[in-house]
């Protein structure tokens, strides 16, 4: 054998062994043979659109590389969310690329589903509709989610063609009591928005405005404008509710009241306010009515009934009257039970008494969710299906079978033989699986549309990528079905632009294109003076029937909306399942939250499975122990427990709707998310919860620190720095942070750049948007329930939640990520230099070099490193979402936060092209970009003018476990707490 031949064979052999062991690269590097005109292969193109993961309607930018969108970010120009996005918005990608997405139209026959062609499906729909319309009036009905003006208009017109006017906008959270309260008090049946940012005292009776309430990203941003430390001051926030939601956890004071007594407290406050002499300017008729209504609610009655600590009630009163711009918010998204309407009316009235000009209420920018039908109407709709002959029911992206209670007969209505149900859903959820025809239409990220989250703006949607299932636009389907060849418009897009022109929102093609580029038309007319409602009616007193003393027997069960799943529509997205619930830190499972005192009396402990029995049904749920609910109250998040809806949702978690009453509140038509008098019994089973936290308290360590507002400007008590945990000085990860007395090794040279981040704990609300953004940006693997149970979740950035051992309902959230230490413990212990200190100060992990000793992880004090225990799966087509700029790690290597090095590299490229340095703020890691409250600041520490450098000089700055002298480049600013 010749030498060359030998080498060839040896090389081939080696190669085949190597490829056999390793992950093979994708065969096709480029997805498109020819890119479209506005794209360059390998470069990102951004398309502005509108997020449709909830009715809030945030503006988004979708990042398209080579024909696939790989990331969704907030649109900085959009007035609702100003560039920020929540975790559900980030996870919209997993809807498009969902492995369980229906690819072709399906027709139900006796032996199951059969794929049919699109034209067959469309013809069938047309046929059924025409047949129904020929047979009589209102024989075609449609149930849709809240959609934009265009679609709703088209639905109405199409139904009219079929001689029907039965269109219902269904949303599980329709804020009926808030809407009625606005109607009764302000004479405006709608959902106004609130100028949280201008308030100096915020009192919420359970409104979870940081999670799901009306428009959470918007309110999270506004809340921190008011509540974050600014010029040494910050607003005050008091949350009164029986269940401490994440919003309650962000309050300066969470007051636990007995369920259903919010109205009592609000009326009590009105009583006190009137006694204080407030509201003298009010019209006389209103004042007398108010006095009459609030009269019985003196302090004793309020305290007796609500179970508040008298001293705390006093303090709330004092602070409320001392504040110059108080704002009172109503009850939570869910949680509506007895007297919720009264609570919301009372909060409106309280606002009115405290500020008769209602400056903090914005009557112009109303939330689109106000269009949703009341729950009572929804139930009537289904009853009408049963009662009146109906032939065709069209369902657009609604899942009433999951969202409504079992007792509400939705299932039987849909299952009726004579009814032909068409679902336009892309997912086989509970409702769709009862349909007769599934016609999967394109998803919002793939289509043209308009959806303005506020009534005053136009917010556009455009296809951000080619459709994955080649589904038609729902508008086009209806145009075809209802008009056939006599269409009023060529397609839905032209229909929509014509409509917008008619309503004078745009003028011509050019405006439309401009709107698409920007994401909408946002020149909201400036409203210096709020358009106060014309008259405030005094006819509200009849609704304030005397609120009875609370019933103390049995437990009260609350179903609460979930920041992760909203009403359940997020449950089929693996990121949302894998990222734990902000308060319980439980992923995948749905536990029932119970107060430790209740557990002690019931002799139950965390992880036990209990049977919860209400009048309407029962569920067996694992117990989670938390001080965040009132004793005697059981709370459970809505969203999971699907019977269908794909691999990540089906059979995972629990659906609390099983326990809820099908009745609605008579005056507002609101559903009841509260059940009184439930019983619990032990089952004897236990379930290990998929928790991502170890200990709930920080054991006195220097991790998540707080400082009191009053002592903020007083000099530190530890004026002389020492070497122990609580006296170790801040040591910057740059040469000036080195001290020969402490440091053995010389400093690293950082000449031009030293990347660093500040994390302002005073701003962190614990929502986890950063975590979701990180999963999306960095191809972080999802380990599944088993993975989380084995403590192998892969999040590069996660929120640690610490309770105050003195007062367990005081919570501090701390985003934890790789600290990019200058003196990194991981770097010195790796035998092969896989963790590598870059000259820009990044702690790079070289995946190719890593052999998997895991020593770095062992030695990392922050435990910021994650190991690839297996080859993680991205079931087809989820892998299309993978960011091509980030390596997909194979099994056996360590990974961790890279400060989004790919974005730094991109900025380098741009800066080099323009022969300049990277500007301050030019690099935004995914977490920094999306954080709704602006917790993170990223920048160059060497640059003395950079924002991050200036923030480091804040007296609140500290490093987590700084005394280890790791010199972290992630510098935290203490949370500022205040007493009420």
């Amino acid at each position, binding site marked *: 054998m010749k030498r060359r031949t030998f080498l060839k064979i040896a090389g081939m052999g080696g190669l085949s062994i190597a490829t056999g*062991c390793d992950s093979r690269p994708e065969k096709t590097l480029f997805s498109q043979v020819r890119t479209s005109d506005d794209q360059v292969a390998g470069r990102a193109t951004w398309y502005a659109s509108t997020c449709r993961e909830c009715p809030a309607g945030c503006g988004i930018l979708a990042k398209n590389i080579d024909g696939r969108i790989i990331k969704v970010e907030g649109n900085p120009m959009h007035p609702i969310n100003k560039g920020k996005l929540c975790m559900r918005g980030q996870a919209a990608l997993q809807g498009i690329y969902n492995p369980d997405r229906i690819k072709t139209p399906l027709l139900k026959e006796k032996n199951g589903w059969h794929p049919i062609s699109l034209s067959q499906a469309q013809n069938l729909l047309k046929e059924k509709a025409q047949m129904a319309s020929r047979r009589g009036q209102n024989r075609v009905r449609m149930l849709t989610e809240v959609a934009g003006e265009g679609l709703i208009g088209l639905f109405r017109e199409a139904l009219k063609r079929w001689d029907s006017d039965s269109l219902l906008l269904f949303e599980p959270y329709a804020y009926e009591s808030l809407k009625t309260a606005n109607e009764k008090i302000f004479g405006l049946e709608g959902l106004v928005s609130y100028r949280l940012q201008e308030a100096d005292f915020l009192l919420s009776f359970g409104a979870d405005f940081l999670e799901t309430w009306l428009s959470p990203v918007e309110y999270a941003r506004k809340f921190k404008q008011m509540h974050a430390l600014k010029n040494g001051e910050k607003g005050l926030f008091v949350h009164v509710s029986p269940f401490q939601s994440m919003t309650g956890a962000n309050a300066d004071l969470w007051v636990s009241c007995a369920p259903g007594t919010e109205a009592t407290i609000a009326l009590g406050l009105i009583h006190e306010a009137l006694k204080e002499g407030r509201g003298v300017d009010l019209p006389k008729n209103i004042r007398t009515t108010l006095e009459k209504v609030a009269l019985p609610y003196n302090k004793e009655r309020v305290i007796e009934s609500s179970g508040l600590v008298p001293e705390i009630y006093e303090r709330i009163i004092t602070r409320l009257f001392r504040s110059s711009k108080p704002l009172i918010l109503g009850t939570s998204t869910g949680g509506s039970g007895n007297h919720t309407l009264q609570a919301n009316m009372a909060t409106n009235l309280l606002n009115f008494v405290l500020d008769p000009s209602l400056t903090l209420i914005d009557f112009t920018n109303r939330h689109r969710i106000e269009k949703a039908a009341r729950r009572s109407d929804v139930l009537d709709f289904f009853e009408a299906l049963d009662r009146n002959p109906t032939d065709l029911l069209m369902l657009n992206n609604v899942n009433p079978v999951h969202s409504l209670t079992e007792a509400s007969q939705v299932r039987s209505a849909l299952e009726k033989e004579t009814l032909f149900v068409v679902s336009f859903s892309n997912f086989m959820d509970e409702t769709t699986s009862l349909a007769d025809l599934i016609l999967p239409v394109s998803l919002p990220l793939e289509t043209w549309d308009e959806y303005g989250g506020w009534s005053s703006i136009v917010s556009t949607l455009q296809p951000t990528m080619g459709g994955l299932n080649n589904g038609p636009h729902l508008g086009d389907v209806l145009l075809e079905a209802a008009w056939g060849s006599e269409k009023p418009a060529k397609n839905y897009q032209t229909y929509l632009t014509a409509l917008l022109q008619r309503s004078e929102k745009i003028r011509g093609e050019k405006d439309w294109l401009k709107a698409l580029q920007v994401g909408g038309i946002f020149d909201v007319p400036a409203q210096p003076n709020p358009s106060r409602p014309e008259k405030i009616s005094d006819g509200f007193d009849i609704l304030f029937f005397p609120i009875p003393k609370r019933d103390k027997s049995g437990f009260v069960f609350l179903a609460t909306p979930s920041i992760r799943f909203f009403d359940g529509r997020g449950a089929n997205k693996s990121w949302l399942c894998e990222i734990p619930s902000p308060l319980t830190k439980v992923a995948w499972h749905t536990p029932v939250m119970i107060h430790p005192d209740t557990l002690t009396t019931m002799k139950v402990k965390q992880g036990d499975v209990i049977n919860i029995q209400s009048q309407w049904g029962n569920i067996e749920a694992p117990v989670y122990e938390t001080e965040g609910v009132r004793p005697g109250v059981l709370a459970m998040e809505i969203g999971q427990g699907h019977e269908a809806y794909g691999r990540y949702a089906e059979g995972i978690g629990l659906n609390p709707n099983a326990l809820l009453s099908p009745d609605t509140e008579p005056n507002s038509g609101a559903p009841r998310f509260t059940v009184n008098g439930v019983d619990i019994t032990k089952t004897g089973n236990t379930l290990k919860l998929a928790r991502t*936290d*170890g*200990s*709930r*308290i*920080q*054991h*006195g*360590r220097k*991790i998540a620190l707080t400082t009191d507002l009053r002592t903020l400007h007083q000099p530190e008590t530890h004026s002389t720095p020492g070497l*122990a*945990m609580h006296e170790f000085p801040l040591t910057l990860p740059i040469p000036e942070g080195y001290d020969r007395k402490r440091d053995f090794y010389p400093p690293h040279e950082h000449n031009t750049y030293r990347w660093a981040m500040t994390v302002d704990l005073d701003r962190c609300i614990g929502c986890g948007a950063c975590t979701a953004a990180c999963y999306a940006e960095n191809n972080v693997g999802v380990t599944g329930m088993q993975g989380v149970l*084995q*403590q*192998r*979740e892969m999040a590069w950035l996660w929120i*640690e*939640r*610490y309770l105050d051992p003195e007062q367990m309902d005081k919570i501090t959230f*701390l985003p*934890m990520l790789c600290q990019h230490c200058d003196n990194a*413990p991981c770097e*010195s*212990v*790796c*035998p*092969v*230099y896989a963790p590598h200190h870059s000259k820009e100060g990044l702690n790079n992990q070289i995946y190719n*070099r*890593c*052999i*998997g*000793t*895991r*020593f770095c*992880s*062992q*030695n990392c*004090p*922050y*435990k910021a490193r*994650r*190991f*690839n*225990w*297996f*080859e993680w799966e991205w079931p087809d087509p989820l892998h299309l979402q993978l960011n091509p700029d980030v390596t997909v790690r194979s*099994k*056996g*290597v*360590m990974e961790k936060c890279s400060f989004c090095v790919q974005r730094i590299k991109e900025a380098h490229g741009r800066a080099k092209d323009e022969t300049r340095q990277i500007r301050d703020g030019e690099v935004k890691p995914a977490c920094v970009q999306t954080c709704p409250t602006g917790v993170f600041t990223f920048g160059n520490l060497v640059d003395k003018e950079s924002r991050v450098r200036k923030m480091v000089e804040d007296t609140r700055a500290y490093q*987590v*476990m700084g005394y*280890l002298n*790791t010199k972290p480049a992630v510098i935290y600013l203490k949370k500022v707490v205040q007493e009420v």
Partner: protein
Amino acid sequence: MGRSLLTYSEIDRTVLDTLRPASRGYWFLIALLALGVLVGAVCWAYQIAVGIGVGGQNHPVAWGTYLINFVFWVGIAHSGTLISAILHLFRAGWRNPIARAAETMTVFAVCIAGLFPFIHLGRVWMVHYMLPYPNQRTLWPNFQSPLVFDVVAISTYLIVSSLFWYTGMLPDLATVRDKAKGYRKKIFTLISLGWTGRHEQWRHYLRGYLFFAALATPLVISVHSVVSWDFALGVVPGWHSTIFAPYFVAGAIHSGLAMVLTLLIPMRKIFHYEVFITRNVLENIAKTIVLTGLIVGYAYMIEYFLAWYSNNIVEQESFRWRALGEYSIQFWIMVVCNSIIPLFFFIKRIRTNLVWLFCISILINIGMWFERFVIIIGGVAHGFIPSVWGDYAPSVIEYGIMIGSFSLFFMLFLLFAKHLPSVSMTEMKETLSKGSSQVHVGS
């Protein structure tokens, strides 16, 4: 049995008797152990194919039984060298009858210990990155890393101890060769490297053996010190301590001596070695165990003292949790087996009773395994950031690999016992010729 009966030919006869064809029971045992090895190998292969996640390691406990077993086996290795080299230099004649077996134990234990870092790796197929081989990209291993120290220390130890073992065996191999017939003669001719017993050869042999003993002696201290630095050089609470090196060395010898007892007591019985391995010898080992047990017990206490004296709340919590937390059972097994039970050897009746000796030696082995468990798991499971505290339990695959490693060790040892002289005839004769004073040293 009186020592006066012992003659040169008696020694030869007794030892060579052990090399006679083995019984069926022996081969059955070997087959059983081979099956165990196979189980381990299959588990490892499965782990390589699927990923290290088939083990129980997690976040925060990224090191599991693989590293526990690594340290355990390195520890076992130590007392072999202690007996064969250090006690040789100290002229402790009582070690002569057990030196060969102990040294063999060392070599096999190091081999098995050396396997575990490979098993432990996430990407074992890239293990060559740890070697300082010249390459185009001028990438070197990180000489700051204790794991690179490990590579150097363990490979040095393996080389030196196997050379020491083999050198010491040369005259005995020649003796076997002289008495053997057929293919065995051929093999032993080959491996005895032309030993003729000339004066010159003996001179070289004795000098060489002494040198190896001198070379191996510092290794006893250094290797386990280096292993301890895998932990002590980390910042992890419960690891980051200067006492780790002496603590680990003492622990290693403690466990190694126990393993010597575990191996020798059955061997003595089966091979009728009572004439060589007298009760005195075993008693001396037991006495040394008392010493190492006291050192280990002292180390346990001093760790607590340091945690308290440091006034560092992280250390304090770590040690509080060690004794009272999720792994308190393991901790108390460790304390009781390693530092309390060996104190029974103060009682002469117990340290001269074979059954007691054997049982206690097993308990110490278990205790020492759990010592490594407590250190390796306990440190990181309850580290700096309470939010990521977690727990760990070995998986089936890890148990499989553990069975494999123990099977391999005992299989190798059994093979050795039946195929190579398990007592050094040379040294026994030396003892005989130098008179009983040497034999009775320490008794």
